[in-house]
């Protein structure tokens, strides 16, 4: 079925963001912890695929985050530090 190779990145282009600079990223992931994680549920959980495990490294990008908070709940290893973005930054729904 086509769902198996579905690429979420093609879909989220319709949503809008006001992206803050890298030093103000609202989520910080400590990738050292991820190397020993038994499950990587952050990857399965994130609805916009901000997490990828690539060549034994957890790669995280905050830009596509819709601020749902799922990764903070999926990660029980203490690798995810989650804050709200600074005022006005982040996802910006026009429908909601």
């Amino acid at each position, binding site marked *: *079925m*086509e*769902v*198996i190779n*579905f690429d*979420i990145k093609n*879909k*989220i282009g*319709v*949503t809008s963001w006001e992206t803050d600079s890298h030093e103000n990223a609202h989520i910080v992931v400590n990738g050292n912890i991820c190397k020993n994680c*038994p*499950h*990587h*549920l952050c*990857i*399965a*959980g*994130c*609805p*916009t*695929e901000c997490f990828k495990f690539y060549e034994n490294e957890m790669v995280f990008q905050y830009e596509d985050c*819709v*601020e*749902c*908070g*799922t990764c*903070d*709940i*999926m990660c*029980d290893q203490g690798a995810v530090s*989650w*804050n*709200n*973005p*600074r*005022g*006005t930054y*982040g*996802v*910006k*729904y*026009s*429908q*909601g």
Partner: protein
Amino acid sequence: MESIQVIIIGAGPGGTSAAIRLAQNGFKVALIDRAMPVGSKNLSGGVLWGNDLAEILPEWQEEAPIERHIINKKVGFLSNDDSTVLDFNFNEWNSKPYNGVSILRAKFDDWLASKASEAGVAVLSGITIDSLIIENDQIKGVRQGNEELRADIVILAEGANPRLMLKHGLSFKGQKQFKRKDMMLGIKEVLTIDQKLLEERFLLEKDQGIAGEFVLGNIPGGIKAGGFFYTNKSTISLGVVIHLDSFPEDKASSAQHRTYKVQEYFKNHPYISRLIKDSTSIEYGAKLIPEMPIDRFPNFYGNGYLIVGDAAGFVFSNGIVIQGMNYAIKSGILAADTIIEANGNYSATKLAMYQKKLSNSYILKDFKKFKNVKKMTKNSKLFEIYPKAINTGFKEVFNTNGKSKNHAYKVILKSFKNSGMGFLSLLKDSSKIRRI
């Protein structure tokens, strides 16, 4: 910003309803939201059920940006290729006050905040509060950067992902993180479609709408999820609600399963794909949905604060109904009434009357009455077995294939048996279904 009496954090329906009620009673209120404009970070499935807003805005159904009023509710069971869908039509739902209306939160919440402004509330948008001011075990206000804003009491209406509550240990037992079993993830797309086509396809006359909710038996990997669609004026809100604790805790599973694929499996089901044909996605979003049982709710009040809406855990779900906004509005109004009656004494002892008000309202009555329903909504058979057994059973009843017909109930019972369910466990489950 002199002499603010009440600070409210979060301009969703809960926080804004509290603000309006307080302003109508002469209180000086600051309503703070991190989005600019208000509403642009707010997301929900999309049906506001009930008429709680009438307590503060009697004419809201005339004025608010309502998409459609719901006259038709569908409840369906989807298995891989098949579906059984119950179709409820209630003529009464066609007249005001409407039982439910579809809304889009970016527009609706902005409108509600404008009503708060009109009532005299200071609406401060685009501000993320960093922390609460706590002195002598009493909340005294909020901080943002080097700035402080003080008030007599704070209402926390932060929503399903309440960072301030988690940071300051105001969640259940001071937990800094929610448990997977206590949260679901909602994913939603808004699909645009020609209005005339939408009305013809869904058999709707002017301003009438549909709310459809589905048990998804077509998701691989044992992932438990439900799906929904709601018709708006010329768009469809379509999404899924996923139990986060149904993802297996191993890397092999995480390499394969994705929450966002659940949405694709739902959209690709033949029953759904026919309904959304010729539509185009114009927005994609996601939000957490609290699902904790009543014994893991936070304390709803304490020295100098009250908690309302999703932040308090007030979302009702029983497998065929999922509602949050009405509970948010009602709890916001009750929090405001508590403050009005507290007469300037905002100690936990005095604010305990908020708990009493919640207990006397439908809010805690609903959660208490349905506290055992989780056993059903978390039951893997509901997702893995029932949709398939129901669909296969009915298919056999309706199929005309040269074989002699059998009594419907026998065929359907047989279908359940073939799907691995004994008669006893069916009986056991049906006593749980009674709880819905």
